[in-house]
């Protein structure tokens, strides 16, 4: 493999930015945001340079690596701090640094009134560095470093306004649930080491060829747990909604475009494991399908614009995971949807931020309405993203989602029909709730108070939105044309990538038609329900039980609280009491016994010489009795 010495700059630049901004403290307040943006942008530049270098090399030499130093070396457990840039990573690198830079630019303006803007940019840079390490690491353990690094950055950013207790709790919740996922990754690495003897991607890939299916299934399932934690997949999805506590650019970058898709990256990266472990694959598909619907249903019930988008993110990642679980046929499409989703969802989040910016940070869509006139640029960019996500041709989402639906139907047999129907159903619901968002926010009559003055955002904010909307318009076609992305990624998936299922259940055109019909149904329902009828400024309470449950995020928090949190708290209290009373009590009991024995025996020490004499006499009796017995 070609080695390079320049990969580290991708990570080092934003890391340098983060450390400088954190260590310099308030001194850097004036120029901190500029340095942060510059570091992100230069990392993007390095990424583009690497892409150009890569394009100039023949296909089989495109992957390059860099070994920095030997990180851990204990007997057979050897891990290098090594980086690997291949066709898969470069997609992520460009997505992370590109979208990241745009969001840096957006944040300069969005956070301009926050006195801790420097710190915000430091966190953003830290995130970029960690995320790049995640996608560039050449072994599961280096990936793990980035994996937890983005978790940390996410924690810091969600809790950026942690003076509000609810936000602080949200950040803690995100970190802890991510840790549950990380545990899965730990298990996966441990099993990999115990069974395959290595943890590097290349090593595992090589060893997996002769490995038993049981071991690979175990690794696969554990990797899925990790992916579920990071990508908010069922059953570890509950943190994502709360994570919207962070500033909106954070939601756009971390909780829409990049970090939450790390799970998909992990699954696609581990394709050699899943390919050999059908059971694990099946579970991946199931998880993806459940999350797809789960997120979509929650999305229909949310009045908070960011939470609606977050639910949509969850659902869209469900699509990706489902597709990635379909094996070689799906990897490229999962990545394609990931990339297009990165564009349009980031753009929509930024649009939501722009709306909030104009609406005094209100997030309640029922208090919006008619903003089309006041925020034309936001409306257009958001609208383009909307068209992309519901999958209207020729926007990006159409191509990527269409391919996923098609792959799902092609999975074969009953499974294929079921999965295809689910993805279609998801498309209906997606179209419905996204249309709802559009109508509530932009096209319906205004419902906001008179003292609010909606206005378009400044240039630094709408510029990134425009760039992203261009991406959400064009990227789909770009990737789709001549299977550009699929061919590009093929070397990563080895030989598997080529043998597509040639037997189609439906012709592609039929699938597209079905998908478009689904979209039309969803949009139609939404228009009937919201555009053509009165919208109440306060969410109606006399609604069906289903709506109520959906509003409560399908009871995910109640479930977690009653199954994990409460019993956990009870156990903690029990153990604290037990430690005090039983364990330490035993120790103190010994002490008390000694004291008690002393107190009892002390009574014999009355101080009366006569009682001592009596004791001596008793002693003498015992002695003489002894003699008497012995001489018997």
């Amino acid at each position, binding site marked *: 493999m070609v080695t390079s010495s320049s990969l580290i700059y991708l990570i080092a630049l934003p890391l340098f930015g983060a450390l400088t901004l954190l260590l310099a403290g308030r001194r850097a307040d004036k120029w901190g945001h500029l340095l942060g943006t510059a570091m992100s942008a230069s990392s993007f530049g390095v990424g583009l340079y690497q892409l150009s270098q890569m394009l100039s090399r023949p296909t089989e030499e495109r992957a390059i690596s860099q070994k920095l130093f030997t990180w851990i070396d204990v007997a057979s457990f050897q891990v290098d701090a090594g980086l690997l840039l291949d066709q898969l990573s470069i997609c992520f690198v460009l997505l992370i640094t590109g979208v990241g830079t745009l969001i840096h630019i957006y944040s300069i303006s969005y956070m301009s009134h926050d006195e801790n803007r420097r710190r915000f940019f430091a966190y953003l840079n830290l995130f970029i560095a960690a995320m790049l390490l995640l996608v560039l690491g050449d072994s599961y353990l280096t990936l793990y470093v980035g994996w937890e690094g983005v978790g940390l950055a996410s924690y810091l950013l969600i809790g950026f306004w942690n003076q509000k207790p609810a936000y602080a709790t949200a950040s803690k919740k995100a970190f802890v649930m991510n840790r549950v996922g990380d545990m899965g990754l730990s298990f996966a690495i441990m099993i990999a080491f115990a069974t395959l003897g290595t943890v590097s991607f290349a090593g595992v890939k090589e060893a997996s060829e002769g490995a038993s299916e049981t071991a690979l299934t175990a690794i696969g399932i554990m990797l899925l747990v990790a992916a579920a934690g990071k990508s908010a997949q069922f059953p570890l999805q509950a943190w994502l909604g709360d994570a919207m506590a962070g500033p909106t650019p954070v939601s756009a970058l971390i909780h829409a475009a990049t970090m939450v898709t790390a799970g998909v990256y992990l699954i696609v990266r581990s394709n050699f494991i899943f390919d050999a472990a059908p059971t694990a694959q099946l579970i991946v598909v199931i998880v993806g399908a459940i999350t797809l619907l789960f997120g979509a249903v929650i999305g229909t019930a949310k009045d908070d614009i960011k939470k609606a988008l977050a639910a949509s993110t969850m659902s869209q990642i469900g699509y990706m995971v489902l597709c990635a679980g379909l094996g070689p046929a799906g990897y490229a499409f999962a990545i394609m949807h990931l990339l297009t989703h990165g564009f349009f969802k980031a753009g929509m989040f930024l649009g939501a931020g722009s709306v909030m910016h104009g609406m005094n940070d209100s997030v309640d869509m029922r208090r919006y309405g008619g903003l089309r006139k006041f925020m034309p640029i936001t409306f257009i960019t958001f609208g383009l993203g909307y068209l992309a996500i519901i999958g209207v041709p020729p926007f990006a989402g159409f191509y990527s989602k269409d391919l996923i639906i098609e792959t799902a139907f092609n999975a074969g047999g009953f499974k294929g029909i079921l999965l295809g129907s689910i993805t279609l159903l998801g498309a209906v619901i997606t179209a419905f709730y996204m249309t709802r968002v559009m109508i509530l926010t932009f096209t319906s009559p205004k419902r906001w108070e008179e003292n609010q003055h909606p206005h378009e955002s400044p240039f630094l904010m709408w510029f990134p939105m425009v760039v992203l909307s261009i991406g959400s318009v064009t990227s789909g076609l770009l990737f789709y044309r001549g299977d550009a992305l699929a061919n590009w990624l093929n070397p990563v998936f080895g030989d598997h990538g080529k043998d597509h299922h040639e037997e189609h259940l439906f012709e592609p055109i039929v699938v597209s038609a079905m998908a478009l019909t689904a979209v039309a149904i969803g949009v139609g329902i939404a228009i009937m329900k919201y555009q053509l009828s009165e919208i109440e400024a306060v969410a109606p309470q006399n609604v069906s039980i289903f709506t109520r449950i959906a509003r409560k995020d399908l009871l995910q928090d109640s479930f977690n609280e009653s199954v994990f949190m409460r019993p956990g708290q009870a156990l903690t209290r029990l153990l604290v009491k037990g430690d005090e009373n039983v364990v330490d009590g035993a120790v103190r009991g010994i002490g008390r016994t000694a004291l008690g024995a002393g107190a009892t025996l002390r009574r014999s*020490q*009355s*101080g*009366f*010489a*006569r009682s001592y*004499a*009596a004791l001596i*006499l008793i002693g*003498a009796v015992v002695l003489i009795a002894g003699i008497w017995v012995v001489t018997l």
Partner: protein
Amino acid sequence: MNPYNYLYVAGLLFTIGAIGVIVRRNAIVVFMCIELMLNAANLTLVTFSRINGTLEGQVTAFFTMVVAACEVVVGLAIIIAIYRSRRSASIDDASLLKR
């Protein structure tokens, strides 16, 4: 008669002396009971001396007497000292060991 009979008497006297030490409260009486026990012991020594046909027992008894005399002298002095400070010859009153 049997010379062992003296031993029985000595044993009884010793036992009675021991009871006296425990049940009597007057320090002087207690002291006298101790003397009684010593005398009982001496009697056994003399008796054994006779049984064994050597004089070692008597020598030991002699030493015991001298030691007993010393003990009486010091002991009574202590009783006097205590009596002077406490105006009591009851040994129960001298129970400072308790504290």
